[in-house]
């Protein structure tokens, strides 16, 4: 039996159907930039509803969303195509050094080109990864 262990140094986003296709946040393809921020935004669905006589009641829905903003620094053209043309709307897996495994996807991305000729055609790309209800249990 062969056992492999993976030590993640930075959060990574990968295609679960082809785990070799992955991007490490923060570093980007050219290994430059800062570490990814560790911000996970949770949102319990619901509202405070007002009834007669001034009664206020909190009404919850079953939605409990989780969003993870990610920035990929100095992406190469190939990585940019992956993030902009291939991955939006595809099921992806987010992993980080704390053992987090979250399936999800994203629909929009912001691309900030870096105007430095020495780096070539590179850009910082930001997305908001949205958790989706999915497990890979068999």
């Amino acid at each position, binding site marked *: 039996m062969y056992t492999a262990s993976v030590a993640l140094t930075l959060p990574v986003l990968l295609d679960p159907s082809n785990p070799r296709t992955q991007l490490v946040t923060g570093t980007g393809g050219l290994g430059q930039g800062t570490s990814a921020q560790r911000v996970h935004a949770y949102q319990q669905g619901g509202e405070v509803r007002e*009834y*007669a*006589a001034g*009664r206020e*009641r*909190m*009404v*919850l*829905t079953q939605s409990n969303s989780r969003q993870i903003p990610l920035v990929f620094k100095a992406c190469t053209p190939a990585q940019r195509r992956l993030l902009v043309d291939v991955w939006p709307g595809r099921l992806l897996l987010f992993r980080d050094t704390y053992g987090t495994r979250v399936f999800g996807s994203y629909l929009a991305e912001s691309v900030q080109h870096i105007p430095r000729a020495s780096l070539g055609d590179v850009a910082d790309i930001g997305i908001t990864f949205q958790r989706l209800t999915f497990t890979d249990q068999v």
Partner: protein
Amino acid sequence: MQGLLDPPRQGFTSRNVLDALAWYPIVGYDAGYELLDSQDNPVSDLSEYLVKAGSKVARDCNADVHGSCVLNTEYPHNWGVDRVKIYYLVYCEAVPLGPIRFDQGVFTLVTPGLPLGTSTPVYPSTGYDNLYRLSTPIGDAYSVAAGANVLSAVRTVITTVTGSSHIILDGSKSSSTLADAKSWSAADAATVTWLQVVNSLLSAVSYRPLWADWNGYYRSEPDTDPATRPSEVVFGAGDTAVARFIDSRWAEHVIVSDSGRSLNRTAWNQPNWWRFVQSGLSFQPVEGAGQYTVQNLSAGPTSQAATGRVIKAPVQFLSATGQADLQAQGDLIAAKAVATAESVTFSTAPWPVAAHFDVLTLADPTLPGAETRRLVAQSWSLPLDGKDMDWVANVAQPVDGGLWSGNAAPPIRPANVDPPPHLGQTYITPARRP
């Protein structure tokens, strides 16, 4: 109205259910649905396919088929054949046993739509409750002989047409027989439905038209004057004597929406004179023998005294067993007509125990004339995405005076206003919280 602890809620207490529906300050809502087999037993839970936004369950107690639903689902059903049971779930941290389930009825999904241009379509479908299964033309002549047991004849029709044995008929007229034969000719076969046949039979024993309950069971019971039926729940919408009397913490338990409440009056030629004639007589009817006339001389805003004129309803021929039955049926029809003069529209937090012709009391300090009205729910609509539900209810005992009549004097409390409900008749406030 469903009982608070009707199945599948036997494991809870009334306090649990009331906490979840009205009392506790934080609550969560969810919904789901099950695919059923031919005997309405659950086959599989398809809740994961339900798109709750835009989905709803509704009831119009005066429609031919009372219950309906709009179900947005990703599941490709066998449309027109599949029957589903929709349920509503209420979560409350004060109820540690888990979500409380309220079944909403069995529906046949009959009118799906197929959205084009998407690889994962959501089918918006409309469904109808189990009365739908009886809403087919009889197709041929049909008759029930004189002397036949009425309720047995009803059961026979339901079981034969639908295959269902889930029938709950009140037993008070279990021995009543038809005085005259009932028959529907082949000429009527294309227009008369089995549901009309059943309802005609039920009316012969003064039973309410057939309805399908939250389990899909067929039900009927004696029809009664809504003004005499006890209130099943008090909805408080402000500081009233009734609210203070039955619940010292009423302000924490209000589930009536703050806006959108209205009291509506229908003043267009509301009859205050009715004549009923027994059908199938072999002699000329006269008043007291095959004929019965009712006049509303002074009750409510549509009375002859209030309107200053006599407005006659068309003569109605009733299938009655005798003069006493004719009068009972006539009184009931007249009472219901009086009760349709006023209606109230309002919204509440989801109240998923709502059922058929529920009797409610609305205690609202802004009501003109008196601060309470006893209501008979005519229709309601329960969204499955947790939004508040809408009600339309008739006022069982219209109250005259106050703002309605343009009377500038302070509102008066008429003699026929509801007394404070007995504690046992209320759901929201049957006991004071510690």
